[in-house]
């Protein structure tokens, strides 16, 4: 009958009505009431304590409201009450699957605020660890996505088998499996031994074989194709306007990768491509992750080849007690989930006056409702899984 109620009834959208199947507006005598389903915060497929309230017409979603805050741990408030360095371990706990890259984003912001430079070897190490983190994140994500599709744990077992190998390396480097707390302002904390680098190199060399195995298992699976192709389409223009970043944006065909755009760190020295999707559906988002992992392997092998010797810490850098001049800085990286930014405002004191995390997971959920409209409730779980959120970052 009608097109779906636009989320912004008062303001004309520059992009017209949302794409995707038309949803019936149900208010005549032939249709019953809408059924409201509250999924979460304890639900096996909401990846933590996420909650969404869906209104259903039969099995079709006509309205979906996410509810946040069940893991709001006051990271920003705590960070404003401690020194710059003391917030570093908290950034591990933001996106707890990717502590290495979150560390980097924060270090980048503080370095920008301090005007601090970073030695070459540390830059290479940062790239190496961030790309390894991306691989871990994407392979786990694919596992979780298939979990949501109903494979009940099997792909996840493969993903975690591989993750353990990476995590062992992280542990031998930083001392902790998940909460690495590895970056410092002006460099890194410990220098990896040649054996560590050799082990990491072997692991990466063997990784494509795992990817092939993984793909043989998953890509092209009939059920998977039926349940992901054409599901949860995301229109590129709307995605940009909604601030969606990372693989979700690129799966819609928008070429925006901060590694290329900002060329932060040493990414300008590496030769890699940015995979793009065509349809912006769940299948593209899955496939894009696989392709990104292959690109990460490419970056990593170049990094292992080129990593120079030298210090890992700027000798002039202060170790603790940072007091940046009054001012503000916004630094961002291409995290595995999207643009991860840190906004810091200093008033010259030992603590940041304002500390803000720009969480990709939260903002990527902006269009969740639009992507789910007209699909069944079972598909909403898969769409959510393909967006890839971590609740520690959504709620902070």
């Amino acid at each position: 009958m009608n097109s779906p109620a636009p989320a912004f009834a008062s303001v004309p959208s520059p992009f017209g009505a949302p794409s995707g199947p038309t949803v019936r507006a149900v208010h005549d005598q032939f249709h019953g009431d809408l059924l409201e389903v509250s999924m979460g915060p304890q639900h096996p497929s909401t990846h933590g304590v996420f909650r969404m309230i869906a209104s259903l017409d039969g099995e079709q979603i006509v309205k979906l409201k996410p509810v946040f805050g069940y893991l709001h741990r006051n990271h920003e408030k705590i960070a404003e009450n401690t020194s710059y360095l003391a917030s570093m371990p908290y950034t591990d706990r933001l996106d707890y699957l990717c502590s290495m890259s979150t560390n980097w984003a924060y270090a980048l912001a503080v370095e920008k605020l301090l005007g601090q430079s970073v030695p070459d070897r540390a830059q290479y190490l940062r790239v190496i660890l961030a790309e390894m983190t991306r691989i871990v994140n994407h392979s786990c994500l694919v596992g979780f996505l298939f979990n949501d599709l109903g494979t009940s744990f099997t792909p996840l077992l493969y993903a975690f088998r591989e993750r353990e190998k990476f995590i062992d390396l992280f542990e031998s480097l930083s001392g902790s499996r998940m909460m690495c707390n590895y970056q410092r302002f002006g460099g890194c904390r410990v220098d990896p031994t040649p054996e560590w680098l050799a082990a990491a190199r072997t692991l990466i060399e063997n990784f494509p074989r795992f990817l092939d195995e993984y793909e043989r298992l998953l890509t092209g699976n009939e059920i998977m194709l039926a349940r992901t192709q054409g599901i949860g389409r995301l229109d590129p223009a709307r995605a940009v306007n909604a601030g969606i970043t990372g693989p979700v944006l690129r799966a819609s065909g928008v070429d925006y990768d901060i590694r290329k755009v900002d060329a932060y760190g040493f990414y300008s020295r590496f030769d890699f491509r940015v995979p793009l999707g065509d349809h912006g559906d769940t299948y593209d988002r899955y496939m894009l992750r696989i392709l990104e992992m292959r690109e990460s392997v490419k970056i990593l092998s170049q990094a292992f080849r080129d990593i120079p010797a030298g210090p890992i810490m700027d000798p002039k850098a202060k170790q603790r007690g940072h007091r940046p001049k009054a001012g503000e800085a916004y630094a961002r990286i291409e995290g595995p989930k999207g643009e991860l930014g840190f906004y810091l405002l200093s008033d010259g004191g030992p603590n940041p006056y304002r500390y803000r995390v720009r969480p990709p997971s939260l903002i990527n959920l902006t269009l969740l409702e639009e992507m789910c409209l007209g699909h069944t409730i079972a598909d909403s779980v898969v769409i959510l899984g393909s967006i890839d959120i971590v609740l520690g970052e959504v709620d902070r």
Partner: protein
Amino acid sequence: MSTPASTPVYVPFPAAGELSDADREDLRRNGILLTSLEELYNWGRSNSIWPLQFGLACCAIEMIAAATARFDIARFGAEIFRPSPRQADLMIVSGTVTKKMAPLVVRLWNQMPEPKYCIAMGACAISGGPFKQGYNVLKGIDRFLPVDIYIPGCPPRPEALLNGLIKLQEQIKGEHLNGPRSARHLRDDAPSEYPIPEYGTHDLTPAQNPALWSAPAPPRYPPVDPTA
């Protein structure tokens, strides 16, 4: 001095609990398995714990890791994570409990059937952990729920979770089915459901369950000599 062989001596057989372990092992070697109902029951229960499948924060990832191939929680009979609290025996509170989440955790606990156990996994679930200063962070789930096992760590390694599970199994094996020391779920005075806190204007109301938790005593000071 010696009894004639024709009159058998009646040797009272000791109850299973009174036999020493060595005797029982001896008998077991000879093909006789002795047990008591209590032991059999506890043995079965302790080796088929079904945890509730719910993760709160970072610790949940290590909980998942404990369930995967390398650590394989299935070796201890606890691999069946049930998404429904109605089917679960064990609640692993894995991660930060925020004040917004606390009422729901208590509600989940209330929905679990007895006998049920609670493991507080990680510093956050024990005391608020690194996020203790947060305005929205509950400073320990033991303010609202009875916790059986505390596993420190941030996050605890999967091995630590397995250790906590083994400790829980030991606890279950030591439970009595009757008598004054019977297990908690068999006693009438021990509640099975706990009051669910409500969202208030500044904090949860109540902020803790006074029957379970009270503020720790202030630090001890050296006694003062009244005559000095």
